[in-house]
């Protein structure tokens, strides 16, 4: 049986039975992989923190090619991202990144760019505090990578340039709509022309440079609404961790 050796990031770990865990990884070379980790729930297990979500590990697993479930053979931690785990909002933001990846990346399709994006995003998350801008950048970069790029440079109907005031966006056409075309297309959302520039930046900016990014207060909400609704129209359902983070941020604002 072939043995696979690669770097990976743990996306999710769930209990499979009294002793075993089912672990989902995004690997550098083989895309998203699911493995059974035998005896991982035992106190004296040989995997330790290497199966915790977000851990960056060296992974060895085996199984027949093209099957859906592999057996985990060995995992070593390269980087545990402990500073993320010590900070509640960071850990939940990391889980949100993981859930987005798990939702948008299909199994068994090598996707080194998505792997790179996740790894670099976690590194930024670990060292920086601007969680909101990083989240928006991650959302947009992931949509671009997976081929769900919004049309932001010209009207998605007449190809004309957008106006200079409020700009419409149609989720059905996945693009901006100019004022004259708005009568036909009925855009579901409108935002200020200034917001458009930030959205364009999000499409191309390297995640490593996330700390250079700063949105004015006036644009923050519009940007988040757009990326969030774009994700909804892409996935067809709300992710679990998004409303969770919003709720948690509110609790920590008021109670802590």
């Amino acid at each position, binding site marked *: 049986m072939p043995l696979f050796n690669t770097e990976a990031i743990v996306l*999710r*770990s769930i209990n499979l*039975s*009294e002793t075993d*865990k089912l672990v989902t990884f995004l690997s550098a070379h083989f895309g998203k992989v699911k493995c059974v980790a035998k005896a*991982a*729930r*035992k*106190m*004296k*297990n040989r*995997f*330790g*923190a*290497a*199966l*915790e*979500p*977000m851990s960056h590990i060296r992974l060895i697993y085996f199984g027949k090619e093209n099957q859906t479930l592999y057996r985990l053979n060995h995992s070593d931690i390269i980087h545990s991202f402990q500073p993320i*785990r*010590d900070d*509640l909002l960071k*850990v*939940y933001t990391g*889980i*949100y990144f993981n*859930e987005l990846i798990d939702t948008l990346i299909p199994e068994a399709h090598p996707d080194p760019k998505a792997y790179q994006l996740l790894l670099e995003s976690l590194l930024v998350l670990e060292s920086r505090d601007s969680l909101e801008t990083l989240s928006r950048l991650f959302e947009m970069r992931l949509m671009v990578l997976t081929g769900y790029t919004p049309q932001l440079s010209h009207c998605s109907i007449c190809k004309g340039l957008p106006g200079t005031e409020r700009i419409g966006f149609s989720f059905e056409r996945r693009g901006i709509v100019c004022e004259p075309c708005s009568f036909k297309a009925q855009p579901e959302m409108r935002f200020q022309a200034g917001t458009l520039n930030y959205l364009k930046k999000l499409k191309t900016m390297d995640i490593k440079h996330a700390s250079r990014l700063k949105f004015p207060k006036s644009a923050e909400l519009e940007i988040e609404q757009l990326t969030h609704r774009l994700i909804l129209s892409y996935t067809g359902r709300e992710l*679990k*961790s998004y409303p*969770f*983070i919003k*709720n*948690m941020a509110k*609790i*920590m604002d008021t*109670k*802590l």
Partner: protein
Amino acid sequence: MKRPPAVTDLIEELKRMPGIGQKTAERLSFFVMRGSNERANKLADAVRNIKEKIILCSQCHGITEINPCEICRDPKRDPSIVCVVEEPHDVYAMENMGHFRGVYHVLMGVISPLDGIGPSELTIEALKERVMKDNIQEVVLATNPDMEGESTAVYIAKILKPANIKVTRIARGLPVGGDIEYADEVTLLKSLEGRTEMN
């Protein structure tokens, strides 16, 4: 030929239980069918009793037949030290170790974004109330040493900060990813003795 409804009923009910598939459910059903009436009645009584007699302790949320539970009522236990665990069965893991003399607080789960479980789904508010009104000196957080357990511990430590009491974490030093339920007594005792203060 179809099975009699009484047989399929039992099979279907058994299949709802974790880890039981069609084959196992069939085997168990035929075992009950072939056994004595007395055995079958005992099983039925046991199933009924677990729902009728078992309640949650109003103080610690552990499972019990009398309220408050045996541990909460025991005058030899020290009510000023509270050990916080995820599930009722974790109380038994701690009790089997036999060295903890305080009382418990069962969270009834753990904060888990991907299962949609936030702090308000757990008994964290009740814990806070206990800390405020009872004379509690130390809260020992014994959630599992995995991501959900760790972040739940961090959250509770933050929530309890205004109370100005000692909040310690037991699971540091326990192997990450393991389950307290399956910890041996020596490991658990060591992690209790080596508990560290959370800031």
